[in-house]
């Protein structure tokens, strides 16, 4: 079809998405409007835990411009929000209703919703809603003993919702044979995705067609459509969720939240379009938080530092309710903790505990940022205990290439964990060569000798991507040769239009300019899994490839200009497992107790890159988030469960000034064996090992192995650690 063979896959093609976004033409949730729309404002609990006795809405209802004020009584027929992923039995009591019923369980828990003609008036009215709450002592730590979840209304239901256990091998034998047992207790603070766009939605009911449409969807529109339909008692096909532009996802946005259901329900009931735009303060206490896990590790090691067995007890702070992610984070934590190492015997018990903080869900590299931090701290502790070099201890433990594919011995997200391909030692060699490791160590030692506090650290990790079970794409070509690719994926700003167009262009051999990619619309395609778990490039990408090939077959022998359309599927029972290493050089200023990241390197094997420019962009952006979580970002609560971090003045996302240029060393040594493109995902490559690498580097800078046991390494913590005189 084309003039000559043009390569698209593997090329750093400029993004198709950009022009619109650069000229102010983006259509983000808050940019949408419909004539006659109402504005919703949610009234939230000011206390962390309490018995909700009543909600006085009389004054709010009287305010001119207010159309309705709802409390639980107005939504009592709506079932609680269901668990989408990693559903296990017994979680039902912990699910969140769209407005609080008889307890409030975190500051920010929705207790009422105001609908008004104007967003300013809605906010005025929200101030006139007075919940009467009998405050109860809040639980703010998952390592405290469990209590009753809602003592009066759900007697006997424990705040430990579940314990996720994964185990294989003979742990007793491992400990019996141990040369040494290394123990460690570490924790990762509470932080989360915090996309720059807050959440938002616009729901409209079309009485003529009987359809309900919600714009502002993201991530998993197809799944959420089904849920909204079920909760509001409508047939699936009468509900449409449509995604516009999305100002960042990171795991947080696009899950089904109470507010989404409220706007949809209000559009039906009030018979007017209803718009909701979250403000930043709300976002920081209402959208999913993440991380917040404590690890107690025990490792049996031999004299070389080889881990014979690893036992882990983990406490996962789930916050006020179990939301759509179920036990995804605990499950991934337990499954991914052994990482790139052989670890012949293993057991992890992850306690999922409800506290009185914002409910938790996933954030980029869920369960891996945390478990990588814990595991790599352990490897450093083993090296220290045995007086060996940390890099050498890792080498001793790495899974050798000839053991691939490697059955990890556990399941996660409903699939068996089988590392499909990888040459872990090779990537380590490449990284050390890139760093000129020996010279770097010498240079740092010289600077330390001169009085500076500088250090190096690294963290090795295995990632996962391409979660099945299936994806579908439909490609059509019209008489003018214009191509449309419709997928069930969702864009969260990661450049998927471009990547999908590249794959399509490569197979069809048409110029990429002729391709249009459609996604995130339940009205255009009946099946779609959305965008999460770094699945799009792999799953949707392969479906696009299949559809393009099917289209080529149809067109074979047909006249030029024949319109045609074909669909393609890709199914996968197993995920594919990319891997990487983060390396950091930091300088600690003892005068201020601040940590400065001087250098940050991400080595990553992606299998095969569809667009290296996008891959690098993902890595650099992720790394900066990882540095944020390692040094700056944390949701802190006081003893009463009051959140102390509810503004951007206190939730400290790094600016340009806090981060070094991130160096990405991307290799393609281990293509995926599970898919025809050989691709693995890149979404979580940049963030996974950042906490681990920075912690190790800080230890090294202080000359105190094992000093860092908790993220983020804030100046106040470092000051306590250094025990400076005063």
């Amino acid at each position, binding site marked *: 079809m084309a003039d000559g063979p043009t390569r698209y896959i593997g090329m750093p093609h400029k993004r198709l998405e950009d022009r619109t976004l650069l000229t102010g033409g983006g259509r983000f949730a808050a940019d949408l409007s419909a004539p006659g729309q109402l504005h919703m404002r949610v009234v939230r609990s000011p206390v962390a835990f309490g018995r909700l006795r009543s909600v006085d809405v009389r004054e709010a209802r009287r305010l001119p411009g207010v159309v309705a004020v709802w409390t639980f009584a107005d939504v009592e027929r709506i079932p609680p929000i269901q668990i989408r992923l990693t559903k296990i039995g017994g979680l039902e009591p912990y699910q969140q209703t769209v407005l609080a019923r008889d307890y409030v369980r975190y500051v920010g828990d929705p207790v009422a919703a105001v609908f008004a003609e104007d*967003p*300013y008036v809605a*906010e*005025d009215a929200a*101030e006139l809603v007075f919940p009467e709450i009998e405050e109860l002592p809040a639980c703010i730590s998952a390592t405290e003993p469990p209590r009753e979840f809602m003592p009066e209304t759900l007697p006997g239901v424990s705040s430990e919702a579940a314990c996720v256990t994964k185990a294989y091998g003979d742990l007793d034998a491992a400990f019996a044979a141990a040369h040494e047992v290394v123990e460690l207790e570490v924790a990762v603070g509470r932080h989360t995705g915090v996309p720059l766009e807050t959440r938002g939605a616009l729901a409209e009911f079309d009485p003529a067609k009987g359809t309900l449409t919600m714009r502002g969807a993201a991530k998993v529109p197809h799944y959420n459509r089904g849920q909204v339909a079920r909760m509001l008692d409508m047939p699936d096909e009468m509900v449409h969720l449509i995604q516009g532009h999305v100002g960042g996802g990171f795991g947080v946005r696009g899950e089904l939240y109470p507010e989404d259901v409220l706007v949809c329900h209000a559009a039906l009931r009030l018979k007017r379009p209803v718009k909701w735009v979250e*403000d*930043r*303060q709300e976002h920081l206490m209402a959208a999913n938080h993440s991380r917040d896990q404590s690890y107690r590790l025990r490792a049996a090691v031999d004299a070389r530092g080889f881990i014979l067995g690893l036992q882990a007890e983990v406490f996962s702070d789930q916050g006020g309710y179990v939301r759509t992610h179920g036990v995804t984070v605990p499950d991934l934590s337990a499954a991914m903790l052994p990482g790139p190492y052989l670890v012949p015997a293993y057991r992890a018990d992850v306690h999922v505990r409800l506290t009185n903080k914002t409910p938790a869900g996933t954030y980029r590299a869920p369960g891996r940022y945390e478990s990588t931090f814990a595991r790599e701290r352990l490897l450093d502790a083993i090296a220290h205990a045995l007086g060996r070099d940390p890099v050498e201890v890792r080498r001793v433990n790495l899974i050798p290439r000839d053991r691939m594919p490697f059955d990890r011995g556990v399941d996660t997200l409903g699939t068996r964990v089988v590392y499909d391909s990888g040459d872990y030692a090779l990537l380590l060699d490449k990284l050390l060569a890139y760093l000129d490791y020996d010279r770097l160590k010498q240079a740092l030692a010289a600077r330390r000798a001169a009085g500076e506090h500088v250090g190096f650290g690294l963290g090795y990790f295995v990632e996962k991507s391409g979660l099945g079970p299936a994806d579908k794409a439909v490609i059509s070509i019209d008489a003018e040769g214009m191509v449309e690719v419709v997928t069930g994926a969702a864009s969260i700003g990661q450049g998927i239009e471009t990547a999908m167009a590249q794959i399509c262009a490569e197979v069809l051999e048409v110029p990429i300019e002729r391709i249009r990619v459609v996604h995130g619309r339940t009205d255009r395609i009946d099946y779609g899994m959305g965008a999460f778990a770094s699945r799009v490039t792999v799953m949707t990408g392969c479906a696009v490839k299949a559809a393009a090939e099917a289209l080529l077959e149809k067109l074979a022998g047909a006249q030029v200009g024949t319109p045609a359309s074909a669909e393609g599927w890709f199914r996968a029972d197993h995920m594919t497992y990319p891997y990487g290493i983060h390396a950091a050089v930091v300088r600690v200023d003892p*005068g*201020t*107790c*601040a940590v400065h990241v001087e250098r940050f390197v991400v080595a990553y094997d992606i299998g095969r890159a569809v667009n290296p420019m996008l891959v690098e962009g993902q890595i650099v952006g992720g790394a900066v988030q990882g540095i944020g979580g390692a040094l*700056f970002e944390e949701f*802190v609560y006081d003893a009463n469960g009051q959140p*102390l*971090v509810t*503004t951007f*003045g*206190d939730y*400290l996302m*790094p*600016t340009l*000034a*806090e981060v070094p240029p991130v160096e990405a060393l991307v290799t393609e040594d281990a293509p995926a064996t599970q898919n025809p493109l050989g691709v693995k995902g890149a979404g979580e490559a940049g963030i996974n090992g950042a906490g681990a690498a920075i912690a190790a580097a800080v230890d090294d800078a202080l000359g105190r192995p094992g000093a860092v046991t908790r993220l983020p390494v*804030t*100046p*106040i913590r470092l*000051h*306590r650690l250094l025990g*400076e005189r*005063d």
Partner: protein
Amino acid sequence: MKPAPFSYHAPSTLDAMLALLAEGGEDGKVIAGGQSLVPMMNFRLARPARLFDLNGVAELDFLRAEGGWLRIGALARHAAFHRPPCGGPTGALLAEVVRHIAHYPIRQRGTFAGSIAHADPASEWCLVAATLGAEIVARSRAGERRIGAGDFFLASLSTALRPDELIVEVRLPILDAGWRTGFCEFSRRVGDFGIAMTAVALRVESGVVREARIGVGGVEDHPARQPAAEQALVGQPVAARAFAAAADAVAGAVRPMEDLHADAAYRRHLARTTTRRALEQACAGSGS
């Protein structure tokens, strides 16, 4: 995050503004740069019923050196200090300090006098005012008062200004070439409010400190000079030992606030560091 309702008044003369303030009572508020007030209104932490916009009062838009003072009119913006507004150590100090105040776009609107009126404990301008001994010129229909910086800042967000008074001008002494100035601040990120900061001005003769002004901000509920540290320094040769002694004196004297980002011990530690570094900066490359 939208402000509560208010009525808006934009006088174009100082007299009209003072008349508004006189009748405005407790629920009226002046808006200058709005860079502190508007965020507080958006959070509904401030909810004035009447807003008096200063921006149209052109007669207060000045910044000039006159008779040994730098006269900073109420509408002089932070950005006006990106280049030294006067010669000598005072100008150099101001141009150094301004880079630590918020960010470039915020500095285009925020005013020097607004910072003084707002009296955030971590305001750099308040620290400079306290350290150099500024005079705050307050005007109401009843007349004009000049308040020394030492008497002006009372506590966090609290000053000696009366509700019907407007800061029309802040005056800073222009130090002669015998003085050296230094400034050091620590904040979590660039542009954030500092957790601790020190401003110093030293008059040095033949390598010996003759006069010292050392002010610490962000540590206590308002910025203040540190007499013990100043005394520790006066008469001493310019040297690391003397700086360390002064820094220790600061650490010993301050009664630090506690918040999310710093407990008392850490703030004290920081105050020692910023003091030592400000002194080093003041004397760096002086060859004395």
